[in-house]
């Protein structure tokens, strides 16, 4: 039986969303696989996450050590090498932590490695078939990996549909004693928070972004109302900053901020490549523009040809009344 372990990242005592996505991913690998959540950390915070996980996973392993209080990739790696069985599949979210730990871990476990997987297509023999993207998302590829000696796989957060948590009544196993020597050549010092303007458009999952189609400074209010209704933040393209209608920290583009929202509402933005250069992470793009030939429609997922000044208030009203 395939054994799958899922490494649970958490922040401030609560697991990140990907914790709900691992079960879907595991099911796609092998519906019959045994799935175990692994949580490393220390103290009460760890316990609370482990308990939270026991409502999603039947099996939860916790590793408690003061050295694991901050997820220092080298320290966590040392613990996981000792905890994860050699022929198991370990899933890690493809985040900045996942990128830090997973490649080296696969070497130490002598396991196959696959990164940033967006889909699984099952196991054939000893090979697991997966889907990933290359060239900045321009093309997709199928890759297979020989998992007979185990595998470390990072999965793209958001790529797998989250399951409903709360149903399970899992057992929590404390494997702190198995973690081994956690001495490290890399010492975590601190996290320096990014400097931001009045709002940080890079942190918002939804952006209502305005371009020249807004026409006048007073109309920005319409975008702000829509953003409020959508629990989003207003960003913009360069002409708006040029006109000094919004501060520079709101600008998306190669000369402004790079953003990775889930949804990008391009309102009256023509879609110059300088602007699109600031848009990363393959968001769902909704483009509204008067000009049916606006290049933004080439890259958008959904397009609407209309005047944003008329459209936005109506959309705001419809969303508000949901």
């Amino acid at each position, binding site marked *: 039986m395939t054994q799958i372990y899922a490494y649970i990242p958490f922040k401030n005592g609560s697991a990140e969303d990907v914790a709900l996505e691992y079960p879907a991913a595991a099911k796609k690998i092998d519906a019959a696989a045994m799935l175990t959540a692994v949580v490393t950390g220390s103290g009460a915070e760890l316990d609370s996450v482990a308990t939270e996980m026991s409502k999603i996973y039947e099996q939860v392993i916790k590793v408690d050590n003061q050295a694991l209080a901050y997820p220092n990739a080298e320290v966590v790696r040392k613990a996981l090498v000792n905890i994860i069985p050699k022929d198991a599949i370990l899933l890690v979210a493809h985040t*900045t932590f996942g990128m830090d730990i997973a490649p080296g871990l696969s070497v130490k476990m002598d396991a196959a490695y696959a990164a940033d997987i967006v889909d699984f297509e099952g196991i054939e023999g000893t090979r697991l078939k997966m889907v990933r993207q290359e060239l900045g998302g321009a*093309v*997709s590829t199928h*890759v297979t990996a020989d998992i007979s000696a185990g595998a470390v796989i990072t999965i793209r957060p958001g790529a797998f549909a989250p399951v409903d948590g709360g149903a399970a009544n899992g057992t929590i196993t404390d494997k702190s004693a198995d973690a081994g020597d956690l001495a490290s*050549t890399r010492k975590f010092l601190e996290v*320096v928070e990014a400097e931001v303007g009045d709002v940080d458009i890079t942190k918002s*999952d*939804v952006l209502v972004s305005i371009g020249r189609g807004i026409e006048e400074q007073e109309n920005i209010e319409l975008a702000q109302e829509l953003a409020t209704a959508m629990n989003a933040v207003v960003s913009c393209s360069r002409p708006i900053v040029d006109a000094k209608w919004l501060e520079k920290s709101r600008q998306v583009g190669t000369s402004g901020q790079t953003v990775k929202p889930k949804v990008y509402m391009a309102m009256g933005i023509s879609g110059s490549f300088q602007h699109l250069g600031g848009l990363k992470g393959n968001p769902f793009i909704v483009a509204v523009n008067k000009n049916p030939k606006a290049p933004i429609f080439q890259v958008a997922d959904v397009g609407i040809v209309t005047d944003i000044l008329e459209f936005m208030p109506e959309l705001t009203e419809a969303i508000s009344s949901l």
Partner: protein
Amino acid sequence: MEILVCVKRVPDTAENEFELNGAGNDLDRDDLVYSVNEWDNYAVEEAIQMVDKMGGSVTVVTVGDDESEEILRREMAMGANNGVLLSDDAFEGSDGKGIATILKAEIEKGSYDLILTGAQADEGAGQVGGMVAAMLDYPYASLVNKIDVMDDKKIKVGREIEGGNQEMNEISLPCVLSIQTGINEPRYVGIRGIRKVSSVEIPVKSASDLGLDAASVGSAGAKTRRVDYFVPDMGEGAEMLEGSTEEIIAKLIEKLKAKGGL
């Protein structure tokens, strides 16, 4: 400080519109242009700036075919002192670990204080740096956007983490770092710069030069393989919503809900 930077020749994403070949299982490579991986370029710039300040030398290394020599020259035109091309038919089809194994063999032949890679390349895996570090038992940090040298044994590095925050770490040397874009502003290299280094000798090393068993690298040693390329069905451009404003808004709201916009 002796710095080795691992670089890769990749299709230039900025300048290419990728299309699949007739069979649909590989890129149409006829019209592709290649250049040095953007992240690697930042790594080389960082290495050059460090050596400018502290002395030492920068060596650029790549695993690839004859055509990869071009990117070594470009990085040498930037200011890297030496270039090494690791090339052998046996290397073809290597997975991340295969590449890491080849690089590790070269690294062990020298004596480097610092090994830099780009945070990721065309495949977007971001794997080789971490693997090389683990194989050498060197400390590793990925997505590095700041390096401060403390003394000849320790450096302080900043990692770009979620939300644009920076995670500061102290790391002992020698170590491996993967470099994130934006750590510096890479200098420009024009045709003239490349021509100036066009006659510099670039040693080419094969599997046997590196003392590698051909079975441990290349497709023979690869646990992970790319099967094919495909373009997921995304349709041509945007799906245009038409109809009355109410209909459009209803459809849009439905989609926004599905995509987490509401």
